[in-house]
């Protein structure tokens, strides 16, 4: 179960990086920077949360159900983005509403990454004794920022065609969704 959760988190990160590849460089850097800021902002709460609480949440069927709902919604929105992207590119006409929906979906970064950052920080703070909490959170944010930019630029370099990245994003999101539901089913088992 713990491994599945790790894989889900890795997929969320990868999906986020792929999604960033559809944005401009400046937007990508801004979002990555926001992730750094987010890491610092949540420190106030994460220092007070025991690691075991995460385990309890993940072991709790009801909270996992809630998380699964968020996950499915997020996956659905990213999948919708993929569909809209294809429609917009290959269909002759797209309605005004469809264009606006696409714009919104295109700008929507996905929220699951922020949950992952939160969890990651709780685990990090509990496993690096003696280090300044602020420094730990800052380094976490900085590394995350760099990883996201690397993923964005790397995916553009490796997959220069947007369709390929889109396909990969779609598959990654669907896989994350399936694994998330799997977690929910097993949510009443301890990790």
């Amino acid at each position, binding site marked *: 179960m713990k491994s599945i959760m790790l894989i889900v988190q890795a997929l969320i990160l990868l999906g986020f990086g792929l999604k960033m590849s559809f944005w401009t460089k400046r937007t990508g850097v801004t979002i990555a920077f926001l992730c750094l800021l987010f890491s610092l902002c949540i420190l106030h709460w*994460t*220092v*007070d*949360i*025991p*690691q*075991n*609480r995460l385990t309890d949440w993940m072991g709790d069927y009801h909270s996992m159900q809630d998380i699964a709902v968020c996950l499915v919604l997020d996956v659905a929105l990213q999948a919708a983005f993929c569909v809209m992207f294809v429609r917009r590119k290959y269909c002759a006409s797209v309605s005004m509403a469809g264009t606006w929906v696409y714009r919104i979906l295109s700008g929507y970064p996905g929220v699951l990454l922020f949950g992952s950052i939160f969890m990651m920080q*709780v685990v990090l*703070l*509990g*496993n690096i*004794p*003696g280090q300044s*909490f602020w420094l730990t959170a800052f380094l976490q944010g900085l590394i995350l920022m760099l990883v996201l930019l690397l993923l964005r630029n790397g995916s553009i370099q490796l997959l220069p065609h947007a369709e390929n990245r889109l396909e990969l994003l779609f598959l990654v999101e669907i896989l994350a969704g399936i694994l998330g539901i799997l977690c929910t089913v097993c949510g009443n088992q301890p990790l």
Partner: protein
Amino acid sequence: MALVFTAWWGWSHVFCKPTNIVLVNLREATEADILANNDHPQIKLKTVPMTELRDFKDIDAVFFNAYGLTLDEEQMAALEEAVQRGMVVYSHFSGSTTSKEEDAIYRNLTPEQIDTLSSYFQNQNRENYRNGLRYLRHLATPEAYGDQHYEKPQEMPKMLFYHREYGQYFKNPKELEGYLKEKGLYNEGGPKLALLGGITFPMEGNRPHLDTLISQFTEKGYNVYPLTAVGPMRARFLKMLHPDAIINIPMGVLGNDSLIQSLHEENIPIFAPYPANMTREEWQDKNRALAQGTKTSRIVLSEIDGGIAPYCIAQHYLMDDGSHRWKADVDQCNRFVSYVDHYMGLRQKKNAEKKVAICYFKQPGKDALLASGMEVIPSLYNFLKELAAQGYDVKGLPSSLAAFEQEIHQKGWIPDFHTPGAEQEFMENASPLWIEKSTYEKWAHQVLTPAAYQAVEQRYGQAPGSLLAKDGKLAVACMQYGNVLIFPQPRAVVGEDDYKMVHGVDVPPPHTYLAPYLYMQQKFGADILIHFGTHGSLEFTPGRDAAMRPDDWSYALVGDRPHFYFYTTGNVGEGVIAKRRSHAALVSHLTAPYVESGMRQKYAELLEQIHKAIAQEGKDIQLVLAIKKQITTEGLNRELGLDDKLEVPYTQEELERLDAHLEEICNEHMQGSFYVMGEPYSAQDNQTTTLAIAAEPLAFSLAKADNEAGKISQKEARSYEYVAHHYLNKANQLITASLKAGKAVSPEVEEALAYSRQLGESPRHELDAMLHAMNGGSLAPAPGGDPVLQPNVLPTGRNMYSINPESTPNRMAWERGKELAESTLATHLKQHGSYPKKVAYTFWAGEFISSGGATVAQALWMLGVEPVRDSQGRISELRVVPASELKRPRVNVVVQVSGQLRDIAESRLRLITDAIKMVSELEEPDNAVREGTLEQEKLLTQQGLSAKQARELSVMRIFGPANGGYSTGMLNRVERSQEWNDTQELVADYLNNMGAMYGDEEHWGQFTDGLFQSALSQTEVIIQPRQSNTWGPLSLDHVYEFTGGLSMTVKQVTGKEPAAFMADYRNVNHTRMQDLKEAMAVEVRTTLLNPTFVKERMKGGESTAEAFGELFRNVFGWSVTRQSVLDENLYQDLYDMYIEDAQQLGIQEYLKQVDPAALSSMTASLQECARKGYWKATDSQLKKLAETHASVTPATEAVDADNGKQMVLRKDNVQDGMILSPDVLVGIVAALVVLIALALFIRNKKK
């Protein structure tokens, strides 16, 4: 609009601009006085804590108290800037600051102005404060509009008498008396009370507690003489007044030794109430401890004067201006006045009319009466006879000791509620006193607070409850002889899980406990309460450690009558708790005498051979092999971990170790039969005790003289072994000869003769001191401790005191502690090739007091930290010793403390935590403290704490019983061995019971699950300090309770049994670390398995005999907690000596006659050792044990053979020597029932 604005600005910034004066670092009382007396509308006063003083903007003047003032660089820069712009700075007590502050202070004042300001503020009265502030305003803002007028300072006398009316001062008592007569306040013939209110006085204002006391005492018929004077003038004033008693309220000591001695010689008791630096709400919060500073300055130091009755008579409250003002606690003042009135009233009351209540201690059941080192029944009988001789009414006292003893055993016992039938037997045969429910409840409501009594009812139900109750009445064990009431102290907690409750915090005592105390107060009307011997449970009932409240049991149950406590001089650590928590005045008594162990005679030849072999450097192989054979036969090799290969000779080093070990066995101070109060030691006991006290110091002084004469080297003169070999015998001979001759045969022996004389005088002195106190007299103060180590405790019969913890570790203790810490590390390095990562210490109050804090010094030095002292020798801060200077890795520590130590040395525990925090910050190689902190943090997060909590708690290394509790709970838990199957259960309880942390104020006394366990990780060594010859690892159950319990817990936490040592401070010339197994071996060999010891003890009565039972129970305790410290043959040796009586001492006959309960306890302990698998006993041994046990165990106690403390034997099984646990029996019965039911079911089916 512009006009209005300009007018407003001008009004507020020019005409009405206030002069801002800041008060910094002033004493609370002075600060409050100054604030209270400012009546100038344009002087704005503000108090700022020293640490928060950062900005001097808009400040016109600063009023410092230079004493203790330290400003950092940033503060100094700001001060300099402000002074340059013209700010005025005035300092009280100038000269106390460092030069940097001195430079800034006074720069804007002329010498004349400084003198004038000093005249105002050092002549403290209302007018001077008022005008002083106006003058300061004038100097700081001379251009300011408004009233610039001020009066000249008034010169006040340095010593004066005063009274309630402000501005009235008197040069001598006569003037004050004249004033009182004029006002109609003088009580003709009334006792004179000197009231010392403050160090500098009068504080005109902020003294409601003093005014309340003056009024209340005056109403009671006393003449109160409030006075102020310090130093020699105070002594002069007191001598001039010659009061009947002193009420001493100022912080610190009353005066020097000569003043204190003269006051006690003149029979002037000192009462020491105090105001507490806490609000009323804080005081009423039972979890809120009195600040250590207040405790030291108000309680500890006054105890050194011989002060009694430390009542908290006022608390403070916060004013809007930021100052704290005192608020008299009228109820507490009343209580205190009533106490003093009762005390002083004893002077007038005839002895025949005085009612005396005496409480003694015994375990439930039919065990002997208990008191540390004292034979209780004869002592009590002697005391009662003495009372009769002094005219007290003790009508009906049996004419013989035997008859008295019989009566005590018939009427003065308390049943064990775990023993079936015992309660019934008590109620039918013990002629108890019966108290009606309604009467009991009426008394309870009069004495206890509603909340306290409600707690009792919630736990035990409505009175009379289910225990010792019949027909709505409550039975109380007691005896009355004329005006003397005698009662055993009942059990303080009752329940199925007593072991949890005794450590616990909020468990109220049952009705059975309250009843005798309520009766004593309300019906019997005792004038005096005496607790007889060391020690009872009253002072350990739940509640705070000082500044007691009516909700505290020890406060409520004693009431407002004088309370005296006969206490052994050997246990000052627990004695001071009785003083503070039950307002007792202690009357110290002698320990059991030290007697000749007979070991030197036994091993003289062997020692001689060893000396010879050492001198020849082991070259005579035959001799060494012969030695080895004898050593192996005696089993001495096992005690030192030496091999038993008889063909391999000992090395020189091994011979030296054997020599030291045997020398220690021969010189071990062994105590004989218990002391009987009122009876001097026999001539032989006096001689052996004098030798124990004086021989070693004399031997060292003889060696020193020879060293100075060039006869021996300095190294030899300091070597314990060398001095013991070459000088001890001579010292013994000199002292013995002098004692026989009745005069010193050489000048060096004078001191020894004085000790002998004091030992002889002490019994009489003790009784006289108690009788003197019972007549309202004063009790002289004295230190406490083992007389062998601290002969200045002689003569006994004095009120023991503790030490000032702020000065600890003192310089000598620091050196000794360092030495022991290094010795521990060297031993570990030698044995394991590396330094330990973590060392666990056990801190006890007695050792802390006697060693002057050497125990704390050890821990600090392990961390690589040393104290920095101020000019008065107090430790103000710590310095981290650089790694280059330390030249070894820093070693982590964890400390477990007793409740007593926690109460008396709170600030030292914080000091250690500060040291841990400092060292944890150091990023340097080989810093096990930092490593441990990180490890602890990691473990805590794994155990479910948040990162923040884990970080905060990762530096917590000091643990102890829950706040307000005093026990590990292990004694009852271990001894109730039928209730546990695995030591893991005990470890869980230990971690729970000892897991309250005592590191800093924020977390003081809190319990966090898993914290203690994480702090014990990596522990490799445990250390128990020892500073007394009155106990050893075997003879005192607390050692296995604490050190055994800790060892067992560390073993489970780390997976490895830690090395265990005793830090032995008993000999100032031979401070060392001793392996626990070796220390145990020495004690076993010199006591339990030593026929001489047994014969000596067989001279004693039942209290002495009871100690045999305790020794065996402790063997069982060690078997459970750390069996490796016991010799493998010990059980067999004990069986041979005590059950088979191999030495033909007649021990069983003695025990059967004097104290069968002790024999029952011994046999039960051995059987339990066998049942639990610690001893592989044969069937015949078990059978014999069971028969012996059955022969001395009453039928009613067969189920719970040791009076409810342990064992699972059943009478019917005992006959066959079978041992079955109740669990097994229940299982068998259940299985049978199921089988029968099954058979019946099948049969019915077939039908």
